């Protein structure tokens, strides 16, 4: 057993209202520089929708992530030798047109225009070339556009559905959508790390945060195409790739990452998971539908005395083990089993988990005040958002995984209803509990964690034990627009 700690997160999609506050917090902290305008280390997508960059989930187009070749795992974009052969031109690299060309407006024209008969206008200009341009895309271009034939209908997950399901999904009175906030997953089998010819991308041993060493990065761009989530971005002005750093400078100062801290819906949970690094490869080799379960298997119980012993022997500090025991992520993923990884079939073993959205699933058959216990399993089958679509996102197509989560989420509601309204029979309650596989306390704990907890319980930043580092005690805000902690130079090319 090779036990490692990983700072992981859970995003509770039922609670996300799609306000983009997280994106703005991140942008203001890290990516408000030339060449980074288009980078959204944190973005919020509307599902069904094409996402950012457009259709990022379609790996036939982008060729990100891993694939099984015989008994081996190989990067979908090619093996090592083939990667080296492509350094002069990476055929799988998305271009700016797959994202959007950043733009601003010539506001000065509004003031400086000479007197005339017509109203002066501020023309859009490109932030790359400074020339006038036609705006054809932008950040959150398909925000809330469910049902759109241009965006939602081209969602790679929607295309997988049958014609009938698609029509049902887009019927005007049944229109449905939910929001999907995304940051870097800080994967355990990261494709970006594996693809970097310079060896500039690495995973931090102590906390599993994946970072790009900016001095070692030579801008070969392989990580951009290899990451199936498209969460490494190429900085066109600096020639360096950059990605979410999980606000490690803030975490080292004991603070929550910016996007977590600013989350209005309090959908974000953060905590340490202990996992067995010896199992990474075997786990990533599992069949598509088994990946989510296998990944849960890889995550270890921080209360198990044997795990604690092995963790100590492996050099994990006691404070980290303690943080793992307090981790809400462990509860969501392992104890309660209601959080799933996004697209496990990319085989990078992402360490960001999602509680799938319940409301759009349920409300088709049960409008508001209806009793939900009578027919909630049939309602799952006839949900407005087909289970197949959700299974395609969160469990490699395994509908049983998603169903199991929903049974638990529904059981929580039934238990709460029995308690607060009191119109449900004991038999119904017991039935729901039995189907969920969780006892009263667990269901109560889920309710508590999703609705009542304060930030210290939701976001358990482990002590990073970097007190000795030169960064200790520095204010993250003070060094805005620099390369990050440890580097005191502005990220600008001087040659």
């Amino acid at each position, binding site marked *: 057993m090779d036990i490692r700690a990983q700072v992981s997160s859970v995003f509770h999609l039922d609670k996300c209202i799609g306000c983009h506050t997280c994106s703005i917090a991140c942008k203001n902290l890290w990516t408000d520089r030339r060449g980074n305008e288009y980078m959204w280390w944190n973005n919020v997508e509307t599902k069904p929708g094409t996402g950012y960059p457009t259709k990022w989930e379609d790996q036939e187009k982008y060729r990100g992530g891993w694939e099984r070749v015989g008994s081996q795992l190989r990067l979908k974009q090619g093996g090592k030798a083939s*990667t080296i052969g492509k350094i002069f031109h990476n055929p799988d*690299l*998305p271009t700016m047109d797959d994202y959007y060309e950043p733009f601003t407006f010539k506001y000065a024209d509004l003031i400086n225009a000479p007197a005339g008969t017509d109203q002066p206008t501020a023309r859009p200009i490109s932030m790359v*070339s400074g020339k006038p341009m036609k705006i054809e895309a932008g950040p959150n271009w398909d925000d809330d556009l469910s049902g759109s034939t241009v965006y939602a209908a081209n969602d790679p997950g929607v295309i997988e559905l049958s014609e009938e399901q698609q029509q049902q999904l887009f019927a005007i009175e049944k229109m449905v959508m939910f929001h999907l906030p995304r940051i870097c997953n800080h994967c355990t089998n990261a494709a970006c*790390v594996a693809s970097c010819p310079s*060896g500039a991308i690495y995973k931090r041993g102590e906390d599993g945060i994946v970072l790009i060493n900016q001095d070692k990065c*030579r801008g070969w*761009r392989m990580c951009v195409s290899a990451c199936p989530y498209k969460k490494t971005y190429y900085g066109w002005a600096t020639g360096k790739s950059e990605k979410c750093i999980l606000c490690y400078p803030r975490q080292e100062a004991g603070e929550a990452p910016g996007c977590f801290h600013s989350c209005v819906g309090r959908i974000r949970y953060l905590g340490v998971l202990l996992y067995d690094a010896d199992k990474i490869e075997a786990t990533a080799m599992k069949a598509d539908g088994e990946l989510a379960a296998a990944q849960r298997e890889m995550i270890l119980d921080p209360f198990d005395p044997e795990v604690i012993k092995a963790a100590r022997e*492996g050099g994990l500090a006691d404070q980290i083990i303690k943080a793992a025991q307090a981790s809400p992520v462990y509860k969501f993923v392992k104890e309660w089993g209601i959080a799933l990884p996004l697209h496990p079939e990319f085989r990078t073993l992402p360490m960001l988990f999602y509680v799938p959205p319940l409301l759009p699933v349920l409300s088709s058959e049960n409008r508001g005040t209806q009793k939900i216990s009578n027919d909630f399993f049939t309602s799952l089958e006839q949900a407005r958002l087909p289970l197949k679509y959700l299974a395609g996102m969160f469990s490699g197509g395994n509908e049983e995984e998603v169903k199991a989560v929903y049974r638990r989420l529904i059981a929580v509601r039934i238990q709460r209803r029995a308690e607060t309204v009191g119109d449900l029979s004991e038999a119904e309650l017991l039935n729901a509990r039995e189907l969920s596989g969780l006892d009263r306390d667990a269901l109560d704990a889920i309710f508590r964690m999703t609705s009542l907890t304060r930030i210290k319980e939701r976001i358990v930043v482990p002590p990073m034990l970097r007190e000795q580092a030169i960064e200790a005690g520095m204010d993250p805000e003070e060094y805005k627009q620099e390369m990050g902690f440890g580097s005191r130079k502005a990220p600008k090319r001087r040659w």
Partner: protein
Amino acid sequence: MADMILFGVFPYVALALAIGVGIYRYTIDRYSYSSQSSQFLESKALFWGSLPWHYAILLILIAHFLAFLVPASWGTLLGSPARLVFLEITGIALGITTMIALVILIFRRVINPRVNAVTSHIDWLLLAALLLQVVTGVYIAISLRWGGVWYVHTVSPWLWSLVKLNPQIDYLANLPGIVQLHAVNAFFLVAIFPFSRLVHVVSIPISYLGRPYQVVIWYRQRRSN
């Protein structure tokens, strides 16, 4: 005197700049030690420019270096007329390839407003020098036949005399002006190597082939387990 400066002194100055400034830049500003890719801004024309350019220029450079480093074996290799003709034709074809590819790359930087915006002065200087180099190279290959052979008896000894710190500039002084231009411009490229994006030629990521896929870095020393 001009010959002495161009063929006897300038190569040393160029090399000294390349090594000195190259090391300085690597130590002081490693962040910039790469070629700033513009593929993200424009990919299609780059494919038709960058790919043929790099592979063809690599082969041509290898031929130049082999003929310089092992002139005897190179001479033996070209001993047979069939091999000589084959190499001559291949060389010219590759040279023309680099020329076309470079023209594509230059046009791309001129025409595409996005790529144009990320092109610096030194980039333009470098492109001009490279264009001059491949145009003179192709012209020499076509007009002064069997360069593979005469290179061994003229340029190789000159380069070796430079290596031995005893510059014999007569070897070059007696060659046609176009060859002299090609040679001096080659050392000009060496001279601007550390100041331009050319530095990427010494960051070939060969070690990638030997390393495991995953890279994990520990901040503290790990206790052995």
